[in-house]
């Protein structure tokens, strides 16, 4: 789903001895990788670990962006935004890790070559940032209904609106740079490609069920850790309304 420039190699699941939630799987001979994490989404800990996995992904991406050779090619405004997003996603990641304590899944491992392919130019960086932020909004919006504890729901709410602010900012910058696929000029911050423009859900933002989110994550090839759903959420899924594939 993420429009990376280079070849995406789907990472095979691999065995790595680790504490904190890794489930060892059999490795094909000769392959490399970093184990797997299985999420029990039938309870709040599992939902929070799902969020933690996504925040790990975002934090890793933005950390790589700020460290990348292409960071300097971004406008001063975009550099400020990227640094902010890195700061916020790192805080989200570390907060969820702290909140989960011994229940946290381990640190996810990344395919460095695939990560590098997301950073090949300023426009590519912005394209991928947009995809990450819209995916984060989709994930929190789709998972909130599965949280049982009101306090956790409030925490998820505190984070998702920040992700939506991020998404709007990235989208607005891309809009100003002439990216208008799926959106009318000047509206991309909350464009018709993410805020439904017709039908019974007109005016509502994207949402995806956890399985759809993890499928998109998996297909990027960014993670060498396989993150899967061990137990589905207890509750009724709703129709997905996800963000589009990133425009080139």
């Amino acid at each position, binding site marked *: 789903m993420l429009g990376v420039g280079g070849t995406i190699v789907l990472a095979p699941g691999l065995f790595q001895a680790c504490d904190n939630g890794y489930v060892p799987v059999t490795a094909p001979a000769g392959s490399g990788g970093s184990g797997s994490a299985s999420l029990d989404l039938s309870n709040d800990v599992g939902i929070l670990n799902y969020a933690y996995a996504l925040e790990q992904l975002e934090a890793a991406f933005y950390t790589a962006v700020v460290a990348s050779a292409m960071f300097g090619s971004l406008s001063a405004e975009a550099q400020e935004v990227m640094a*902010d997003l890195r700061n916020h996603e790192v805080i989200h990641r570390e907060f969820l890790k702290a909140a989960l304590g011994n229940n946290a899944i381990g640190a996810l491992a990344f395919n460095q070559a695939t990560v590098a392919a997301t950073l090949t130019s300023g426009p590519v960086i912005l394209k991928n940032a947009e995809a990450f932020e819209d995916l984060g909004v989709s994930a929190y919006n789709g998972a909130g209904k599965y949280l049982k504890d009101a306090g956790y729901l*409030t925490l998820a709410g505190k984070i998702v609106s920040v992700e939506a*602010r991020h998404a709007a900012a990235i989208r607005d910058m891309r809009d100003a740079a002439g990216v208008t696929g799926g959106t009318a000029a000047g509206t991309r911050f909350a464009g018709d490609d993410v805020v439904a423009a017709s039908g019974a859900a007109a005016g509502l933002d994207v949402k995806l069920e956890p399985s759809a989110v993890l499928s998109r994550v998996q297909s990027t090839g960014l993670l060498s850790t396989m993150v899967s759903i061990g137990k589905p959420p207890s509750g009724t899924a709703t129709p997905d309304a996800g963000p589009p594939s990133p425009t080139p």
Partner: protein
Amino acid sequence: MENSETILGKIEPDITQRFVTRREAILKGAAVSSTVAAGLAMMSAPIALAALSREAFGQAAPSSVQGVINFALMLEIFEYEFYSAVLGTSSVSAQNTAFAAVRAKVPAAALPAIQQIQKHEQEHVAFLKANGAVNTLNLTAASFDFTGARGAGNGPFAQATTDLAFLLLTAQGAEDTGVRAYKGQAPNLQSNPAVLEAALRIHSVEARHASKIRRLRRATGATKVKFSGTITGGGAAAAGADNIPSPPAGAVTALGLIYAGEDNVTQGGVDVTTLPNLPGGIDVKAVATEAFDEPLTAAQVVAIVQPFFIPALS
């Protein structure tokens, strides 16, 4: 009365206090809804009591799902009518006239964004109504004084009608209030997952709006506002109104209410400024306040928006 204990037992304690006051008022001749009148006429205490409990708050008991979506509808109508007045498309010409001066100053490049925001607010109104929300106050375009003076037209936000920077500050305050209002009500919707999800999906749209308004403001001289659209700190300072020379005291007070508690850094019992592995060379406290948006209670929201509503909200 035989069913009164059951009805009142289901209602939050402080409603009973309001109920007593309201009932006294009715006995003294205050207007009642037709439901209450019918109930009283039929000597039907349960109907009368149930209707009176709604009257006590001017709407359904606030923490019920019905109460929450009615509350949300009220806020969406407010936002929709605000943007309509700004754009000159209000059904009440006086509202359009009020904003004529500032409307001429809105740059053409910003118009699509404001129109998109207005479109969404209109869609939110339609969505909530289609899903059972009731406009219990019978709000119309004429129900609002966007200067914040309950109808006098000369309130602390009057400058929004003539000054672009002040208009954008006002829009920012409205959007950020909407985000915080939905966030505060989410736990009250847990009994209805479909409604909760819809509310979350509207909440994130309001956050996109808020971010865009902040970006517009930063691009036009509000140097303390982040291009990322996030909120730094709390209280009036979090509004980033440094580009407004001598704002009225009433506006500063209002901004203080809108951004009250936004500087919270204790999340789920964790002081997030002390988390490990944070990037070096950053203002950790500032970043910590930006990374999380904070909820407002319904009462806090009412206190913020009441000056803009001519009818009483509570």
